[in-house]
């Protein structure tokens, strides 16, 4: 594997993505969601619902992660849904696949550029968000908390990038590329609670009260199968005990490793077999 070549291609692609129309759409969206949530949630005068606590900088960041889940993951969909299908439909994929480069190198370069196109602005805006929280609350987020938040956010976007690129490699027309891309995003972002409730009902777990301790413990386990869920479980590790769902760190770590490796391997294997 020639990592130098992979990175050179990824950054070449990234340069074009950062100047694209899609970035023009995404950049203000991310700015509003990330900076707006960090600023608004850390405002001492803000009135939040009683069930939501934002007393420490990290708790504010944890709440801001909900806005990242909505905006940044949608950004990955925006960049990734046609990451492969567009090149395939236009015939340019055939040219790239015929070049003297290993297919896994090409796959990795496409994946890294899609990931970084969203991860870099998200991380930069999150760091500015941390500064905004300091300005509002007069207290810095600890290095460990900030590191976990930024690392988990980068990982979440990486998982989404892999899912989107895999979905795009399956699509043979623009309609299915959109359907697969948006469908995967909707499943994990919007519909996952419903999926959790359905599974709970099927397994006989009490699901009428989603705030009950039994359901929360169950939902934590189901969340291991969702990138959004694992992201939140990772972030909950640094929350106070009464705010987290207290699932074993071993399970969360295992899910993190598996979510990082399995989709990546599946995507590279899929790309190695892809035909123009």
């Amino acid at each position: 594997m020639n990592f130098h070549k992979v990175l050179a291609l990824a950054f070449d692609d990234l340069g074009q993505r950062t100047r694209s129309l899609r970035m023009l759409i995404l950049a203000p969206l991310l700015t509003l969601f990330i900076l707006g949530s960090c600023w608004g949630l850390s405002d001492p005068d803000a009135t939040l619902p009683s069930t939501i606590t934002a007393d420490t900088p990290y708790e504010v960041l944890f709440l801001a992660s909900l806005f990242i889940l909505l905006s940044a993951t949608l950004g990955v969909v925006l960049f990734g849904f046609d990451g492969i299908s567009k090149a395939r439909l236009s015939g340019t994929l055939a040219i790239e696949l015929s070049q003297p480069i290993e297919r896994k190198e090409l796959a990795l370069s496409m994946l890294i550029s899609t990931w970084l196109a969203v991860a870099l602005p998200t991380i930069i805006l999150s760091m500015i968000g941390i500064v905004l929280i300091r300005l509002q609350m007069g207290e810095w987020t600890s290095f460990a908390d900030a590191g976990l938040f930024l690392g988990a956010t980068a990982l979440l976007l990486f998982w989404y990038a892999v899912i989107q690129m895999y979905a795009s490699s399956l699509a043979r027309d623009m309609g299915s590329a959109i359907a697969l891309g948006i469908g995967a995003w909707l499943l994990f972002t919007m519909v996952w609670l419903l999926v959790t409730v359905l599974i709970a009902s099927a397994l006989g777990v009490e699901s009428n009260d989603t705030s009950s301790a039994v359901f929360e413990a169950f939902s934590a386990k189901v969340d291991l199968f969702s990138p959004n869920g694992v992201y939140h479980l990772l972030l909950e590790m640094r929350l106070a005990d009464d705010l987290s769902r207290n699932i074993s760190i071993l399970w969360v770590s295992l899910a993190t490793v598996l979510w990082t490796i399995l989709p990546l391997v599946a995507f590279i294997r899929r790309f190695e077999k892809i035909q123009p």
Partner: protein
Amino acid sequence: MDGAQLRVDGLSYRHRIATPRLSNPWATKLGPGIHNISFSIPSGSIVGLVGPNGAGKTTLLHLMCGLRPADSGRVQFDNKEWKDLKNEHSARRNIGFMPDNVRWQGTSTPAKILHRLSLMREAEVGDLIELVGLKSRCNESLDSLSAGMRQRLSLAAAMIGSPRILLLDEPFTGLDPVAQKALQKLMLQLSERGTTIIVSSHLLLELEAIVDRVVLLNQGQVIIDGELNTVRKKLRLDRRLIIEGSNGDPNELLSEFGELIEYSAEDGWSATLERSEGWSIKMREDLVKRLHKAGMTPYRIEARLADLAEMLSAATGEDDISLTVAEAMMVPLQRKEVEEE
């Protein structure tokens, strides 16, 4: 020429057609493909891949550049054997591929596209942009390029790194006549430098002007291959004689010498004769003498070289196929007739 040969030996491939069912959404069935394709080409040749639609030309090119894995067979070049070009990426350094009908689009520019491909090839773009006539447009967005300009970009993409084998799928499509001539000239120059070029095209007139060998394909198989004259001989298409003259009706007399294939009588007469034994000089002299004796005045007599369309028609045994192939050439003629009306 360095004496190296490109040899394709027993290449076979069947397309997998998706047949999704509820019970198995990923089900496939075997579709058409190519079967046991073998031929060999001296280095520096320009070879025309000719065949009707669906003959397997593009599939063969895909196998030869590693886009699809062959079910069986191998490609040999310069004493090296490539059984699995799809995974032998270093071998693909020798091959440049220009696919058919690439729809370059987006805000990127030809210069950026070629830069990206040069990173993959670890080679310089050099003066390629100038060579294909894209210099004045190299920093314009792809969306603003005409079909012909996009075709030139595809050609430049195939030529990065000076590959020793060029595989061109329908390279003349979308090019204006001047650009077509320029491409023909460029291909001849590359061939002189030792680049082996395999061109698939339905524009047979353009193809015929440059190729020194042809591979005729039909239904995924090689029907015949070799140098143009050899193929004409093999197909018995070197036995036709064109004769033109004035005065009288030569029909009966000409029929004594051979089979009358075509005959027309406008401002004199013109006929095409075929004779299975061929036409010796003595036979031609004899024919001219007999025509003079009968009071007719022949003013042109020459052996007629069958063109690629006729070769294809003869090889496949189906006239309809040659019409299909020639369709692209016929369109301008039809337009001209409409204008004249």
